[in-house]
């Protein structure tokens, strides 16, 4: 292999599990320990009772120059820990990493932004924090402002910015960092869709310039379109690596197979927990429930709460086998649910024909109360679209080519028949 940009050897990081209270040792505890120590011959330190957790375990990675490596995995799989070590924010507990160039890291955009400072001042400050020189920031200043599209607000303190404007400014500064090796953690999960697309485009162009990029994301389509190679981490170890499309597919399959566990017990969820999604059932409306390209779906979502659920909104995203979004079902789109729902219950949604090509689909479910996210279960379920003779010819487009099946009729237009050809 050609000279690597990053090389790690059994890189490991161990944390002691515990609440924040346990990590913030109180001064009293430490002093007491210090005083007691001399009187306890042999027992220099009381054995800690809290279990240890390997956030990263024996990770060997080699990233060649110019490669864009995508890192995927569930929350807590060690992705961020890996990036943090390479960004030098935290130290490994064992093993070593070698980095053969200048690293720029974007574990967050807008680090060091101060709300009282103006847009202009924050550009300089944030640039310096990201490691740019003053002369460099000055040179790129116009480009940064231009990219953010915030010319009119440069002299406004950023505390008056909307969160979208704030993110745009922050990302613009970050996007103009020009290190040899770029380490990016999920920063694209912010801002409005148009700006996200712009950011992905920028990442793509950075990648085409031949810079080495390490990119952590839950955005599977982005991983597939930007990365040359993907790395899948699970419980601190590498479980799979290879071509992004293949790794992503295997990852999603494993994600979905874990849904054998009842939804109620799934840990990888977010939201304030005021109401919980406890079951999901996807079937076709036809007898037997088999889902075919022309089926209508019936989704049944069970939920539970301590109190009646007020102003509930259910949001269902249906994505294809590569987690590219296909449909969004939202209980407010058509006929809203009753203002108040009983503490436990099941809501049903019936759709029009889906017209999908045969293959796997995944379902993400979210429940909002008011406008607050109560629960979100990614990869809550999956279903297979079975084969069916839609056109009556036995022919059907394959999933890896297109996603949809469209009714069609072919004919020859008689008006355009050239005269001469016919009369002969």
């Amino acid at each position, binding site marked *: 292999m050609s000279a690597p940009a990053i090389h790690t050897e059994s890189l490991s990081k161990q944390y002691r599990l515990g609440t924040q209270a346990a990590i913030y040792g109180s001064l009293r505890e430490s002093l007491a320990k210090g005083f007691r120590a001399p009187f306890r011959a042999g027992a220099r330190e009381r054995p800690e009772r809290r279990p240890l957790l390997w956030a990263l375990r024996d990770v060997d990675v080699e990233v060649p120059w110019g490669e864009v490596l995508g890192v995927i995995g569930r929350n807590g799989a060690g992705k961020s820990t890996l990036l943090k070590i390479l960004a030098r924010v935290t130290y490994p507990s064992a093993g070593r990493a070698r980095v053969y*160039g200048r690293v720029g890291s974007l574990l967050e955009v807008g680090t060091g932004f101060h709300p009282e400072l103006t847009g202009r001042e924050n550009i300089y400050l944030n640039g310096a924090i990201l490691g740019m020189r003053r002369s460099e920031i000055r040179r790129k200043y116009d480009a940064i402002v231009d990219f953010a599209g915030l010319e009119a607000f440069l002299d406004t303190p950023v505390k008056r910015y909307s969160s979208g404007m704030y993110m745009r400014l922050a990302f613009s500064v970050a996007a103009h960092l020009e290190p040899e090796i770029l380490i990016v953690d999920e920063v694209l999960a912010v801002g409005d869709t148009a700006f996200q697309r712009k950011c992905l485009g920028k990442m793509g162009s950075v990648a085409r310039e031949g810079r080495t990029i390490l990119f952590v994301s839950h955005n599977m389509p982005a991983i597939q379109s930007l990365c040359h190679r993907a790395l899948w981490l699970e419980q601190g170890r590498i479980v799979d690596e290879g071509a992004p499309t293949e790794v992503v597919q295997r990852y999603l399959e494993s994600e979905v197979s874990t849904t054998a566990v009842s939804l109620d017990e799934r840990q990888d969820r977010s939201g304030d927990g005021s109401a919980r999604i406890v079951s999901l059932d996807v079937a076709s409306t036809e007898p037997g429930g088999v889902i075919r390209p022309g089926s209508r779906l019936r989704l049944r979502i069970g939920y539970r709460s301590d109190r009646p659920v007020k102003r509930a909104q259910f949001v269902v995203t249906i994505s294809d086998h590569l987690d590219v979004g296909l449909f969004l079902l939202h209980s407010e789109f058509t006929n809203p649910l009753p203002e108040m729902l009983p503490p436990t219950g099941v809501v049903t949604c019936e759709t029009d024909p889906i017209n999908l090509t045969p293959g796997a689909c995944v379902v993400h479910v979210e429940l909002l109360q008011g406008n607050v996210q109560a629960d979100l279960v990614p990869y809550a379920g999956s279903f297979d679209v079975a084969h069916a003779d839609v056109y009556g010819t036995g022919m059907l487009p394959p999933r890896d080519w297109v996603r949809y099946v469209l009714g069609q009729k072919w004919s020859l237009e008689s008006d355009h028949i050239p005269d001469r050809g016919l009369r002969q």
Partner: protein
Amino acid sequence: MARVKAREVETDPLVPALAAEPGRRGGHGPSPTAPLTIEPPRGWEIGRFREVWLYRELLYFLVWRELKIRYKQTMFGGAWAVLQPLITMIVFTAVFSRLMGVPSDDLPYPVFSYAALLPWTFFATGIARAGNSLVQDPNLLSKIYFPRETLPLASVSAMLVDLAIAFVILLGMMAFYGLVPGLAVLTLPLFVLLAYLTALGVGLWLAAANVKYRDINYVIPFLSQLWLFLTPVAYPASLVPDAWRVVYGLNPMAGVVEGFRWALLGTDSADWGLITASTGVVLVILVSGLVYFRRMEREFADVV
């Protein structure tokens, strides 16, 4: 736990990598820089002076931020630099000089106390700000790399500006009382440096401890209040019995304050025993502060 060691050769983290080499598109060769090795830390180290130097522009921006924010958030802005020692001086004059008749080495008490309040205010505000410098923006520690020493360094350095502003008032007061400094004034920068290093040393200790033990937030105001009584700000060091002088000098601010008075106001003679003791103690605090800071720094991102 790890040590990050930048091997020699050119490892300037601030220079944009490719700006100068457009020809290297499409897959660079290995960088001309020597590899950076990231591994668990071992042993004792004191600060990374070279890295702090490489990040000097960041230091500049952090000082600038500290000042700028203060001017924006407060009504009086830079006036605080003057108001704080000035009002304290007025109260001290009323209480200590008028009511209690505290001597002032034959100097007008207002000048006598104000000249001491300059380095004292610098020190007290400096350690308070430095002590909070790491915890006030946790994401600076958990999301981005730079030598952490830069943060307390910036806090203390920003206070030098306040010191300079407050100094102008002192010059006015000296003119008012017709006091002309002698040649000793040339040594003033040394005492400023001593004050700076004292504040930095104590600031490093407090900042690093504060990340792990938030009790420090409550300790700082209390600490500086006690420390004020042990420093000859409101009273002359000559009140302290000779036998205790050197012990008294173990408080480095005692040496700083006496030095300021001697350099500016020409008090009888500098108490060199006291100043030497103070200097020695400052060095101990500073070096131990750097070691402690480096030791604690390994956990900053995980704990903050």
